[in-house]
């Protein structure tokens, strides 16, 4: 069964990618990263960032809120300490880049130019948990395009732009980043949400508002992916709430060229591998010989 997937000029052994911020190298103990299409480690910024106050996570019905706030040790630590571990585990690595300014995105991308073992960049212009950068870029077509164009002008690797669902029109943003040169888009980042801790009579998260992820948001993500696929010509990577092979198939039937898995890993560390296996089984049982035959089949 051929699960090989081409996205933005890179070839993945299968279309199952582990989403940024949810798949740490700790999971190498439970599942084999080499069997996955790719791994996207937590977004990195130019300098280390310390993140938001606790509580940072809160469970909701079939979902969870997080307000981590892009905590990371900065690009140098990533390149020197984390990347080698992933490569040592045999993972295909896509690096997620975040920043407060366009310049920060550009500088991180430039650093990655000289690093082997990074297959592509994913620009996180959609993090809802920071005061500057993040979602502000992703909500305005013009800004999203500017970040994309700036990074494209320096990067020697394919650039995937990760979109936020928290907009009136995702197709406007998608078209803007396509025009600015993006090689692919991925969606969705988390949906803005919040919870109140009734026992304390105050917001559950230290930062009040956070990002909702998990099965609860799957129908939202699927609608946005379906619409985006219809609006642009570059590949779309679908994510949001995928926990089973069937969920992944929904995204691919809707037109996604690949999928990402986030929150589900917290529940079942082997989800990625299970989804790869389940897609294979589906293709066999339905007499497809190639994963690409499936992509967009449910589109009207």
């Amino acid at each position, binding site marked *: 069964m051929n699960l090989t997937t081409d996205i933005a000029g890179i070839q993945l052994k299968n279309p199952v990618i582990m989403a940024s*911020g*949810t*798949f*740490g*190298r*700790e*999971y190498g*103990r*439970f599942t084999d990263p080499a069997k996955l299409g790719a791994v996207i480690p*937590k977004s990195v910024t130019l300098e280390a960032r*310390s*993140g938001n*106050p*606790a*509580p*940072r*996570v*809160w*469970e*909701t*019905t*079939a*979902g*969870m809120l*997080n307000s*981590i706030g892009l*905590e990371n040790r900065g690009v140098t630590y990533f390149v020197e300490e984390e990347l080698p571990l992933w490569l040592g585990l045999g993972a295909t690595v896509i690096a997620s880049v975040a920043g407060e300014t366009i310049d920060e995105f550009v500088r991180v991308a430039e650093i990655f130019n000289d690093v082997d073992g990074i297959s592509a960049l994913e620009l996180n212009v959609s993090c809802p948990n920071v005061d500057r950068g993040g979602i502000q870029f992703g909500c305005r077509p013009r800004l999203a395009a500017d970040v994309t164009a700036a990074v494209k002008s320096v990067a020697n690797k394919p650039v995937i732009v990760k979109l936020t669902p928290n907009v009136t029109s995702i197709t406007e943003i998608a078209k803007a980043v396509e025009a600015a040169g993006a090689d692919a888009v991925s969606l969705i980042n988390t949906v803005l949400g919040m919870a109140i801790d009734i026992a304390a009579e105050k917001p559950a998260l230290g930062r009040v508002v956070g990002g909702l992820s*998990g*099965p609860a948001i799957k129908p939202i993500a699927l609608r946005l992916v379906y619409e985006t696929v219809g609006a642009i010509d570059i590949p779309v990577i679908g994510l949001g709430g995928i*926990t089973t092979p069937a969920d992944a198939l929904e995204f691919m039937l809707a037109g996604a060229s690949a999928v990402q898995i986030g*929150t589900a*890993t*917290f*529940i*079942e*560390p*082997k989800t990625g591998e299970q989804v790869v296996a389940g897609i294979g089984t589906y293709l066999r049982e339905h007499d497809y010989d190639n994963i690409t035959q499936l992509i967009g089949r449910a589109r009207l």
Partner: protein
Amino acid sequence: MAEKHLTQDQLEIISNKVVGDGFYRLTVRSHSWAKSARAGQFAHIRVGKGLEPLLRRPISIHGLDDRDAIAFLYQAKGAGTALLAAKRTGETIDAIGPAGNGFTVDARFRRIILVGGGIGVAPLMFLAQAYRAKGTAVTVLLGARSKDCLTCLADFKSLGCQVTVTTDDGSQGHRGYVTDILEQHISAGPGPVAIFACGPTVMMRRAATIAGLYDVFCEVSLEERMACGVGACLGCAVMTTTGYRRVCADGPVFSAEEVVWTG
């Protein structure tokens, strides 16, 4: 490194019984967990079969029942622990662990004082087992509702610990907070002495302050909301003197000195 034993296992339930008002004692069979687990570590348990509730639940290891069996002590608080309470002998639980770092177990201490409040008593039993195995004198100060665990007092005593209970209203043991009597116990015997606390934040904070005053070694076991439980998501961060640290992977046990108390 504790992390090196971290695995995902289907652990067979030997028993799962009520041991107090809303308190349960769960024992599961696992040679590898029993062998590698250290006091203060926890299991990250998938309590439901489907997606309700979504996330795993962290439950401390309460102790070793024998070389193939580990025990948990938990309080049925919400939907997740209620599902755990409904599990029967012969069923399995999906557990990730032993997770976290664990308490310091060091033979140089002549005496240790365990300060527990409420369900915070859970990991302290395992720690008492570890120190008693080294012959160290163990004093247990249990606060308030700790009597809720009916078996705990007897279990501590049969390990040879000296146990003192305090309640807010004096209905059982001493009247007042468990930390009120901590000072007298620090001075009441030979050193070096170490304090290990687990329970409500106010209690741990007070124990930490007292330990600081007497310049006594002190570790506390912190709680924070968790998602992954293995260090990947940065969801369980607590503020320390060296910045945010992850309760699940850098903790749950922290040196009392490094904790920046907020609660």
